[in-house]
Structures are given as structure tokens and as C-alpha cells.
């Protein structure tokens, strides 16, 4: 009723053509015994009424005036031009490009996306995206199992806890064993994955080692050594990376990563309570046939025009069915387009500025907290744009500050019991000096 155009006259004409008296007749084949006995949905709303309802819900949220919360989802600038690009209904209201002749817009933009992800990560092939970073990581680890024909996966505890949980769920189906490689969380420790522990736990039954850079606690991992440890036993390194950090940090392709996974949300996608985000995956060309997800390739038509098509589809569910590498069907095309537009809008200089500003403000807030005697960094090791800071009585102060609209990062104790009274503080290019001052003042007031 809200959007159907049919008038009573239209109904009559169609019913007449079909040869039934009423629409009810078209549902005669639903046996009475299985018909719905209730449908207690509220009545229809006009546009102004539904706007009021959604505004009611939006107003029940309190968007923090000052936030140092990251932990896998980051508040970056979403340039207006990015919003404009993904708002074009030719992109938004089109389907998966199974008829390439009328889908070159989507297909070429995905090819550009694949190219940009390869550039950022230093890898040879990138997929057209996955649901999020966590599922991309799980799919990457399972891909390593297929490539090596091994059934155990080693994962550092310094990888995002949500990613680890998703991997555990994905492994439970095919019965793949997960091994945890501990991070050094002791007092005075590094906050990084312990390479000797990794070496000790890796053997030729392990398909891959999954490590994150920067890790969940903000630290810069010894990725090259971890790659060496994996390769020494014929296992793969699955590197989980943060895309804006790749403006500054060595790309995983250069330090020996075999498969790369990432959460692409920082690239032009709002935090919007956790989704839709976009998972990135990249690998070497020799592994491409085991890579799940859509791939777009360049080709030509009979007139010699350049064009793009979904390719290597024989990997996918609609052809392989029970022999497919993954069941993935929908990707996150519009979010991948946002990332493509974002990387184009900021360019190499802009992405570097985002990374630099984020790093400076993370150091600024850590330094300000230390200078005020409110706490100290939990680890001495270098970090990118997120830092673990020990603050006495952190949980109480965090809750009290939240009431006042200040989110003092992410309390780590819930996921890492060894890290009591430790807050994970994230900064981005949107973090201002006033934000730092407000956090310091807020913590001070809560002494």
C-alpha cells in the first residue's frame, strides 16, 4: 500500500486477465491448516509520522561530545563527496552485476577498489569485499587451511577479541582447531605477540598464524618475525591490518604476509552502530582459486571496447554449490564504493595526513594523562594511533565520564583480565586539542 501504484481499476484489469475473481483466489494453494492466524503489525504511517518515529529513536541515543573510543570502529571524517557518490541511485539501487553490459559502473568501480586494496596492502589480488573485517579474517584463515591442507589455526591473543570469536565460530563447522598464541601482557611487558611462544606452538600441522597490525592494544607487532616463524613450518601468515595505518606502515606484502584481511570501515564509512562495514581480503595470485568472494576482471567486447566482468566465478556458490570455497553471495558493494571514493578523495597525501594526525593526537592524549599524573602507558613499546593506558579505578571513572558525554576509550579488563584498570584510547584526525583537555579534566574531576 505504501509504494504500490495499483488502483482498483488496475486490479480489476489484472484479475480479469488472470481469470480469477479476487486476489484471494491466488492464494488458494495455501492450505487452510497452515495459514497465518495472526499478523499483529502496527498500522501504516505516513512519511511525516515515520520520520517522527525514527527521530524519536535517534534522539534516544546520546552521541558523545568527546570520544576516544576505537577498538575496531573509528570515527574518521566521511567527506561529503563520498556520501554524494554512494547516494547515486544508479549505484545504490542496482543489483549484483550478473549482466555486465548494463553494470559497467559497478564493475569498473570494483576493479578500481581491488586495485587500491592491492596498492595499500602490497598484495597481488584483492576480492570485491566481505561482510566485515572479522568474517574476512575467518575466511582468510579457512583459505589458508585449504591451501596447506592442514586443520589447525594459530591466532595471537592480541588480535581483536571479536575477530577471534568469529573465527572460533567459523572453525566449529568444519572442526578446525584453534590455538592461542599469547601476547606479553605482564607488568612491564611488551603488549605484543611473543615470537618464541609462536615458534613453540607452530608446527607442520598448523595452516596459518593470524596476527594483527597494529594489534588490538595499539602496539606495533614484529610482523616480519612472525611471518618467518610461520613460514619455517610451511604455514601461512594471515595479517589483519588497519587500512589508514598503511599510509605509514610497511604493507603486509612486503613483510611476507600470505593473506591479508582488514576492516575497511575507517575508509569513509560511519560507525553507525556496527554496520554495514566492509571486509577487505587480499592474497597472492597463485592462491586466487581458493579465495572466496567476488572478483572483477578486465576484458573486451567484440567491438574491442574495454569492459569488466565478474570472473573466476567457478569458485563461487552459484556454480560450485556444495564444492564452493565459501557460500558468500552478497558482498558489501556500496561500502566498497565508499572506500574507493574515500581513498580517491583523500589521495596519498590525505591518507598520510589522517595517519599522522591520528598518531600525534594519540601521543598527545597519552602524554597529557601522564603529565597530569592521572595514569601511565601500560606498555613501553611503540604504537600507531591507539594506546593502552593504565588509569586507577578506570571502570568507575569511565562510567561516570560516559554519563557526562565523554567516552574515555574502551575498558580492556573485560576481554583481558590481566589488564585491570586499563583503557584503550584511540585518536583520529577528528580528535582536537579541546577533546584531549576535556578528557584530562574529566579524569581529574573523577580522582
Amino acid at each position: 500500500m505504501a509504494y504500490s501504484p495499483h488502483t482498483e481499476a488496475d486490479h480489476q484489469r489484472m484479475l480479469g486477465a488472470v481469470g480469477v475473481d479476487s486476489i484471494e483466489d491466488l492464494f488458494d494453494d495455501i492450505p487452510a491448516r497452515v495459514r497465518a492466524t495472526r499478523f499483529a503489525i502496527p498500522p501504516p504511517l505516513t512519511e511525516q509520522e515515520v520520520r517522527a518515529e525514527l527521530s524519536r529513536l535517534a534522539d534516544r541515543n546520546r552521541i558523545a561530545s568527546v570520544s576516544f573510543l576505537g577498538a575496531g570502529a573509528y570515527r574518521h571524517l566521511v567527506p561529503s563527496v563520498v556520501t554524494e557518490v554512494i547516494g547515486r541511485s544508479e549505484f545504490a539501487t542496482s543489483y549484483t552485476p550478473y549482466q555486465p553490459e548494463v553494470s559497467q559502473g559497478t564493475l569498473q568501480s570494483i576493479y578500481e577498489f581491488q586495485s587500491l586494496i592491492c596498492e595499500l596492502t602490497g598484495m597481488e589480488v584483492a576480492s570485491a569485499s566481505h561482510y566485515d573485517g572479522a568474517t574476512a579474517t575467518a575466511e582468510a584463515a579457512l583459505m589458508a587451511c585449504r591451501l596447506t591442507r592442514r586443520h589447525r589455526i594459530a591466532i595471537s591473543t592480541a588480535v581483536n577479541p571479536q575477530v577471534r570469536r568469529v573465527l572460533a565460530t567459523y572453525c566449529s563447522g568444519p572442526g578446525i582447531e584453534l590455538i592461542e598464541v599469547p601476547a606479553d601482557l605482564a607488568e612491564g611487558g611488551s603488549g605484543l605477540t611473543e615470537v618464541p611462544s609462536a615458534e613453540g606452538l607452530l608446527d607442520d600441522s598448523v595452516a596459518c598464524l593470524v596476527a594483527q597490525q597494529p594489534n588490538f592494544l595499539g602496539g606495533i607487532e614484529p610482523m616480519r618475525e612472525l611471518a618467518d616463524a610461520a613460514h619455517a613450518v610451511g604455514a601461512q601468515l594471515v595479517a589483519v591490518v588497519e587500512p589508514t595505518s598503511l599510509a605509514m606502515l610497511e604493507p603486509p606484502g612486503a613483510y611476507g604476509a600470505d593473506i591479508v584481511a582488514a576492516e575497511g570501515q575507517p575508509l569513509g564509512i560511519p560507525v553507525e552502530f556496527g554496520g554495514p562495514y566492509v571486509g577487505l581480503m587480499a592474497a597472492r595470485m597463485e592462491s586466487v582459486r581458493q579465495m572466496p568472494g567476488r572478483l572483477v576482471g578486465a576484458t573486451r567486447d567484440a567491438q574491442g571496447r574495454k569492459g569488466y566482468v565478474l570472473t573466476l566465478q567457478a569458485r563461487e556458490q552459484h556454480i560450485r554449490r556444495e564444492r564452493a570455497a565459501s557460500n558468500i553471495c552478497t558482498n558489501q558493494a556500496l561500502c566498497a564504493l565508499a572506500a574507493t571514493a574515500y581513498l580517491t578523495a583523500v589521495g596519498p597525501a590525505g591518507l598520510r595526513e589522517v595517519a599522522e594526525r591520528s598518531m600525534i593526537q594519540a601521543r598527545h592524549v597519552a602524554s597529557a594523562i601522564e603529565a597530569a599524573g592521572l595514569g601511565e602507558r601500560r606498555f613501553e613499546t611503540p604504537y600507531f594511533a591507539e594506546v593502552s593506558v593504565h588509569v586507577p579505578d578506570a571502570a568507575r571513572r569511565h562510567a561516570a565520564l560516559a554519563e557526562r558525554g565523554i567516552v574515555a576509550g574502551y575498558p580492556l579488563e573485560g576481554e583481558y583480565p590481566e589488564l585491570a584498570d586499563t583503557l584503550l584510547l584511540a585518536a583520529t584526525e577528528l580528535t582536537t586539542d579541546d577533546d584531549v583537555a576535556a578528557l584530562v579534566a574529566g579524569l581529574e574531576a573523577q580522582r
Partner: protein
Amino acid sequence: MSVAERPPSTDASGRGAAFHSPEAGGEPTVVQPLIFEASVPGRRAVRFPPASEAARAAAAGQPSLPASVLRAQAPHLPEVSELDLLRHFNRLSHLNHAIDLGFYPLGSCTMKYNPKVNEWAASLPGLAGSHPLDPAALSQGSLELEWLLAELLKEISGFAAVSLQPAAGAHGELTGMLMARAYHRSRGEGEQRTKVLVPDSAHGTNPATATMVGYQTVTIRSNERGGIDLEALRAALGPDTAALMITNPSTLGIFEDQIDQVVAAVREAGAISYMDGANLNAILGRFRPGEAGFDVMHFNLHKTFSTPHGGGGPGAGPVGVSERLAPFLPAPLPLLVEGDPDEVRGKAWAGRSTPGARFALEEPDARPTSIGRVRSHTGNFGMFVRAYTYIRSNGDAGLRAVSDDAVLAANYLRVRLAGAYDLPYDRICKHEVVFSGRRQKRQHGVTTLDIAKAILDHGIHPPTIYFPLIVEEALMIEPTETESLETLDRFVEIMLGIAELATSDPEALKRAPETTPVGRLDEAGAARRPDLRHVFPDAATEPD
């Protein structure tokens, strides 16, 4: 490849005219250059304010990044002005067909109108700016929206509980099968139950999902009426059956009129019944799978509930479950921890908040029977906002009318095209109808692919082709409820015209499409010699 010989009258961001290479037959002509071709060193679109001196000074005392972890060379991101960027993507968008431009009768995809008020809602700063890890006190609106959407989906489907977590339909299927496995394990039958049954008309995601969970797929034939063969199903069911995955209405667009017997047989065998909810658009208000005894179903919010397809996502695939599967739902669930559910719902339906009502996410590990997380955070929240807006806009009468009109439109096309194309199942259909192009193939060598390509020249998108697999030269048409009678009639004229051309001038169809930005593309070449990325001249990785 390089783009040579730019026409002198255009600048770098010139209208995407064909660029001709001087060496004929060498370089392809380009419809719209890659964004990398418009890149000029030093250009940029977005700038950021510099860090203050005070911030830099404070930062100086902190550890810097060691040189060994730094990138040697900046990534080759495009360097373009904001205007060039916008022109590039606008021109690309012009190369797409979309619902907002024309008819898109893709069977099984439900390409209905995507209401723009949904977009307005999703971009409200209070919703778009809500961080998933904010303390619950700051996210009451987000949590309430998720809770209310779950309540609505429960009511629509008749299921006891709903999780919004899965990111897509296939992801919902994975979730459903993982829950089935957990259920059987909880009853000590995990080892014995190894098989998933699917009809031969099933979507490819169904067997692919079964494999991901470590199950073996067994295919059950369909009967001559287009439903699952009940006897074959009964014969295949046994103590080794984990689940049946079935779509209802089937992928042939036909309601399974023995569905209660199907569900009962599965339950009796101790197995889990899974309904693929892709075709929900046909049965809103008329059939509630949870009420009919199904154990689990996924919803496609990007089909029935109008969230935009986005060129291939994002979607959302929430799952509804029966009581016996509820303990296994993904965690964490959004909960109403303080307040009476009936009161909160009732007030929300009247557009009001309930004072004192409080929502929170389930505590981690509060429900040890859960299969755990299937993704980060609580799901594709942006799509929840859109679906919630859609359901509230339509309301009870609107949702019923959706199915009424979707089914009427599909039957209208069925009778109008039944003379020109073979109709394998000549009976009342639901929201989609499956034809076969076998007459055109056998008599004139014109395949369903040729028919689809010819439709493109009329500015509309073809129906789904070659699915389901059990119909030769399948052509699956789903008009949806949002297309006018004029659009439907024009489609009929086009299809009748193509049927006529198949007899009088089949070569014309084989040349199609001729008016689209590109013609039929060399897919074999694309797969044999994959070119999956633009390689930059001084790239760190060598081209293959």
C-alpha cells in the same frame, strides 16, 4: 594498457568518449577511463587541518615508530580534484541500469522500489554516529530500534526469537546450519547427523552453506507440480539427517502445498527444518513459517524489506528460530532488561518511548549454548534502520498489500506470456514465474541468454536466467508490487516482440545487446588470463 591519443578538445576528466589507440587492433577503446588515468601528481580533493604546535610538542616525548616498520614508498592512490572525482563516479554510474531507472524483474531478488525516506532515516546523525561499543546508556535508541525490529520480524514470521547479526542471506544460512549442528551436538547426536537435504531447485548457497558447516548435501527431486517430492523426502530422511533446507514458495515461484507434511516429516526424523526466506515477498500476512513448524529461517532485508541492493550489498540476513533453537542464537542479543515488553511495544507502535525502559546487550558468555559470534558487533545496523522504517511505513495493511500485489503482478505476466514461452508449471504462481526458453532454443537456436541480451536493448534488466537448474533454459520473472501496469504491459510487448524475432530474425537476437555501453564481453578470456587490478608503473609487486 595505456590510454593513448586523447582527443585534444577534452581535458583529463573529459567526457568518457572512446579513446582510440593509433595501433589498430592493439589497445581496446575505453568507455570511461580508470580513475588512475585522471591522476595528476599534486592534485587532491580533501585536506585536513594541521596538528597544533602544542599537540606536536606533547607527542614528541612519546615513542615514535621505528624506521624498520615504515613504508618505503607511498601507495599509488589517485591524485584528483574533488570535481574530477565526482565526474568520474557520476559517469560510471551512468553506465549502470538500476531500479530507479527502469524495470528490473530479476527472479528471486525482489527488486522493488527502495524508498528514500529509508535513506533519510539511516543518515540521521543520532543513528549514523552511534558507536557500537559506546556504553549502553548512550545507545538506548540503537538498542531499542534493534529490539523493535526483532519484535516485528517475530510477528511477521511467527518465530519465537530473532537474531539480527548475520550480514546477508547466505550468512543467515550459515548461522542457521551452525545452530542446527549445535542443537544436535547438545543432544549427543552431533556425530551421527551428517547430511543436509535440499531440493533440486535449491539456490547454490544452500549446498555451499552445508559444506561450510561440514555437512554432506543430498539432493531431493521435485515433483511434477513443482514442489518437493514428499515420498522422496521421506525416503531420504533418517537418523543421519541434520536438516532440510527448503525455499517456500519454491524457486519455481510455487507454494509448497504439502509444507506442513514436509515440516512434520523432518521433525519426526529428529532433524531441523530450515526455510530459505528469500521469497517472503509472496506470503506476508498469509503464511508464517514459525507458526507452520519451521525451526529456523533467514530474512533477506534487502529483498522483502526494501533495503537497497547497492550493486551487490550490503544486505542483512537476520534469522528467526523456534523455541528449541533459541538457546543457540548468536551472541550478544539486544535485550530489554528493564520494562514490560508489551508496554514498550505498544508505546513504540504509538510513536512514544517508555519511561524507565532500558535496553542492553547480553553480557558476554551469558548464554553458553550460543554458537557465538558470526560477525563483529550486532549486525548491519544501517539496514535495520531502513527495514524498520519500511515496515512501519507499510504497517499491517501495507505489508499484506505487498504480497497481494506482488503475486497478482506475477500471475498477470504468467498468463500474458504463456502463449509465447513454454511454462513448465502451468498453475497459479506466487510472486515470481519461471518460463523455459526451450522452444526458442530447439526451433530457432535462440537461447535464454540471447533473449536476456535482447531485453537489455530495451532499457530494462532481464529476468534471472538459468536458475533454477531443473528448468531447461530457465527464465525467472519477478515483477514485484511496485511496478505500474504500464510497465508490466510494456514488458509483455517486449517479450512478445522477442519471441517473434526468434522466429523471424534470430540473428538480431544473437547480436544483442547493441545499444548498451559495451556489448557481450569475452568472459572466457577474462577467466583464462585474469586481469584483476591496475598495475602501477613502479609498483612494488610485479604484474603476473
